[in-house]
């Protein structure tokens, strides 16, 4: 049977990737001072599974590598080796190597990477330093050490004599002497099996236990001691076993005893007399030695017809001992009338055994519990070449294959969806079907009296549709922790490398983001976090000098805002140096001296997104070459996202990325401005109030502010911003107070309309990007309504200045 193992490769690779992620996450979370044994177990288990899989699917390089790693982990697990930070680092490096090797495997290449070879050496060195505690028997060469049995010289004998005395509990492990003997038979061209031992006391006979022993002579051309031992591999500790080539045995057996062959064929009603063959045999054994006892099952009817109270068996016994025939007859005295008894004298045990009816022999121990007749015992089976089966698999090193053209990355083609999401989807569809049939029924003979019912049904339908839509959306959404999870490791490594102390804080990990967006934002994020660590966070000494905590903090935060997902990367480092950026900008003729002094901080900071822009004095391994920020910005813009920088000298830098939630549904507030309908994301609205002239003040620059309790809120007239006519009569107008970027703005609208969920359609995709508008949607009547991006509108209206003025007013 040939099975193409390739079909399992993809699953294996996915599984390995997961396993490696688990290992990495656990290693990072591990606290060397108080080791959590569960965690070590988890790490070990992952390594173990990877090794098993890799070996099975023919990736010997990965299997070998993981084997060494696993050995080390096993020592840690069994507390033979103490885990320290160096070891954790080594293990993490190993995980990286495995990842790289796995990448090669994706291209069907079973080989070591250069780094992996080195790391493997290091691991082996580690292992060869004998751990201080106990030395454990860890097989180093991949050979099992299970053979506790004395090693036998390999001899190719034609005939073997085996005595097999199982311990009582042998059957409790699910092993079956019969099966073992049957397997033995498959090795041989000829086999003779004789039962040599029976229960010593039937009074204490327990059906679960094995009281028998067998003597087996075996003939076969290519049978060696190892092959025979292999058959007994699983039970070697549960039995007494001798395997001797027959010539030697014949020399050993000094004297031949007198042998009796007894055939005992009781009538079916034997049991009704209270007699028990087993008891009789036991008695026989006391009188002399019962060498073998075989049941003849020929008369055994099929299971359906069997009557458990009847005896269908007859037995062939071989008895050794210098006894007279009448001694044996005496044993059978009580049943002499209920059975056919034949007692013959024989000198050689071999003759007796061979003359038995091979096709129907079965051990007495099994006769009453198992009715399958082991015809294989007749021993005419061919010789199976055992060595081809049980030889230790050699490391299969496939010839390296040329790198295949990179396939479509697997993550793009499949998505892992939680069962709960699929379940809820199925639920929704069920509901929808019910509603549909309800409406269908209603439509059959509809008149106006059914109107309330219809409305109810339509409401139901609306809810179903919305829920269904949400469920479908959720399938594509993944928590951002998928992306965030790579950072703990990265921060750990970098802080080591740069000798900085850095704590990473992750917030909003459960924020969900479309899978495609998520995949593309990973690299820019890595870059930004690197920058924060390399440039932002100062060395510990410097931090202490400037009165900060020794340990720097990098915070990654994700949350939803309007139709966007915001990801913030903040550090509490030295912040951006406006002056040196401006200076560099002038140097590179990106702006004039005058502009440099006039521009806002943000404009200056934005210079760092220029290609090739770097103020770093020295180029480090991590960053400083000025390559990157421009790429980051380009990547984010490609996702229709935006990136903003804010920074305060000596307090830190915050980079804010806002990404569209493609296909997202938004809870929207419909408003009318003039004759147009716009939608505010409901989450951005703080409150809505009636315009009240008394509380409005005009301030310089033609702006107006509104006194909302003890706050001054700038007023933005939407119709003016969007190029309509300025509202003349404010008395009937309403104001929607929205919060953006931590300050409030009141937007004047003519009317508040319904609240509803809307599907965001991208304007960028269908038209072009418009400041102040985050997207569009299609309303129930088919018209298009624009979704307001509050922050954009504020910018458009120049209200940032307003805000500053408000702050002045508030303080002044």
């Amino acid at each position: 049977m040939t099975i193409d193992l390739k079909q399992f490769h993809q699953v294996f690779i996915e599984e390995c990737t997961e396993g490696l992620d688990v290992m990495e996450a656990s290693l990072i979370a591990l606290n060397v001072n108080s080791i959590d044994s569960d965690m070590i177990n988890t790490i070990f288990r992952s390594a173990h599974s990877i090794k098993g899989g890799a070996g099975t699917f023919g990736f010997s390089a990965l299997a070998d590598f993981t084997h060494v790693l696993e050995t080390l982990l096993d020592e840690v697990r069994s507390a033979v080796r103490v885990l320290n930070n160096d070891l954790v680092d080594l293990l993490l490096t190993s995980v990286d190597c495995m990842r790289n090797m796995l990448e090669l495997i994706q291209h069907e290449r079973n080989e070591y990477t250069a780094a992996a070879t080195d790391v493997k050496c290091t691991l082996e060195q580690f292992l060869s330093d004998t751990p201080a505690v106990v030395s454990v028997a860890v097989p180093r060469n991949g050979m099992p050490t299970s053979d506790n049995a004395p090693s036998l010289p390999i001899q190719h004998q034609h005939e073997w004599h085996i005595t097999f005395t199982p311990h009582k509990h042998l059957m409790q492990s699910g092993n079956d002497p019969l099966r073992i003997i049957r397997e033995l038979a498959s090795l041989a061209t000829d086999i003779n099996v004789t039962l040599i031992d029976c229960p010593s006391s039937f009074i204490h006979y327990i059906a679960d236990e094995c009281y028998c022993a067998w003597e087996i002579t075996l003939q076969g051309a290519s049978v060696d001691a190892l092959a025979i031992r292999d058959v007994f591999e699983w039970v070697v500790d549960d039995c007494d076993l001798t395997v001797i080539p027959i010539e030697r045995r014949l020399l050993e057996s000094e004297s031949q005893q007198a042998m009796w062959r007894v055939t005992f064929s009781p009538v079916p009603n034997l049991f009704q007399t209270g007699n028990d063959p087993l008891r009789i045999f036991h008695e026989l054994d006391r009188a002399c030695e019962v060498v073998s006892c075989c049941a003849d099952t020929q008369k055994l009817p099929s299971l359906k017809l069997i009557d458990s109270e009847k005896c269908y068996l007859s037995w062939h016994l071989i008895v050794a001992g210098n006894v007279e025939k009448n001694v044996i007859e005496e044993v059978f005295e009580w049943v002499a009338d209920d059975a056919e008894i034949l007692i013959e004298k024989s000198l050689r045990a071999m003759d007796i055994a061979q003359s038995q009816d091979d096709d129907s022999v079965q051990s007495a121990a099994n006769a009453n519990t198992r009715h399958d007749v082991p015809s294989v015992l007749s021993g005419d089976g061919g010789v199976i070449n055992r060595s081809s089966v049980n030889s230790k698999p050699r490391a299969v090193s496939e010839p390296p294959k040329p790198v295949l053209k990179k396939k479509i990355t697997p993550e793009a083609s499949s998505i892992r969806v939680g069962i709960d999401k699929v379940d809820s989807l199925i639920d929704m569809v069920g509901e929808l079907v019910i509603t549909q049939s309800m409406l269908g029924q209603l439509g059959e003979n509809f008149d106006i009296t059914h109107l309330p019912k219809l409305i109810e049904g339509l409401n139901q339908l609306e809810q179903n549709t919305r829920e269904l839509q949400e469920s479908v959306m959720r399938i594509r959404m993944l928590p951002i922790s998928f992306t965030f999870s790579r950072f703990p490791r990265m921060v750990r490594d970098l802080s080591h490398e740069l000798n900085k102390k850095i704590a990473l804080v992750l917030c909003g990990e459960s924020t969900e983001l479309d899978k495609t967006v998520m995949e593309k934002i990973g690299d820019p994020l890595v870059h930004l976090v690197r920058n924060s660590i390399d440039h932002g966070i100062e060395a510990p000494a410097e931090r202490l000098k400037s009165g900060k905590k020794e340990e720097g903090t990098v915070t990654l935060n994700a949350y939803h805002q309007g139709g966007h997902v915001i990801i913030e990367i903040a550090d509490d480092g030295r912040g951006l140096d406006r002056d040196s950026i401006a200076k560099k900008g002038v140097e590179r003729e990106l702006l004039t001296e005058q502009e440099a002094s006039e521009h806002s901080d943000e404009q200056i900071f934005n210079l760092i997104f220029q290609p090739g822009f770097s103020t770093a004095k020295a180029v480090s391994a991590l960053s400083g070459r000025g390559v990157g920020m421009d790429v980051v910005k380009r990547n984010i813009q490609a996702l229709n996202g935006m990136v903003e920088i804010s920074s305060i000298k000596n307090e830190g830098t915050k980079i804010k990325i806002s990404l569209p939630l493609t296909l997202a549904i938004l809870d929207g507030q419909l408003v009318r401005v003039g004759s147009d309908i716009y939608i505010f994301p409901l989450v951005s609205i703080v409150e809505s109030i009636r315009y009240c002239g008394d509380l409005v003040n005009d301030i310089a620059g033609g702006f107006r502010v509104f006194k909302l309790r003890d706050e001054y809120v700038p007023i933005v007239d939407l119709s003016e911003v969007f190029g309509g006519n300025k509202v003349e009569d404010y008395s009937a107008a309403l104001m929607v107070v929205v919060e953006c970027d931590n300050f409030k703005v009141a937007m004047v609208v003519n009317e508040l309309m319904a609240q509803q969920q809307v599907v965001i359609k991208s304007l960028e995709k269908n038209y072009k990007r418009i400041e102040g508008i985050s997207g569009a949607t299609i309303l129930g009547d088919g018209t298009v309504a624009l979704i307001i991006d509050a922050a954009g509108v504020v910018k458009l209206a120049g209200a940032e200045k307003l805000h500053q003025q408000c702050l002045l007013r508030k303080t002044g």
Partner: protein
Amino acid sequence: MARIIAVDDSASMRQMVSFTLQGAGHDVLEASDGMEALKVARATSNVDLVISDINMPNMDGISLIKELRRLQAYKFTPILMLTTESSTDKKMEGKAAGATGWIVKPFNPDQLLTTIGKVL
């Protein structure tokens, strides 16, 4: 044809085992850890063989074997462990718990079939 329960937390291994066994005409039930296997075992009758990995979350193979042996229906059912060469003591532990035998990883489908042939 036999009814076999295959237990492994690694999906690829499990698939390989059950694919191989199914290919040989057996009826295979899968479980991803000891807990699940125990549930499957309880719900299924006439199981001829259980093949189980050792290292698994929730309930490992050793505990599974112990639990199975406690069930009347599994008192003598052959149970094979999937082990790696490095877990010699695990083998012994498994034996003590009542395992019938073991299959050493890595193995290929043919080896698997040969080995289960020993107990079916």
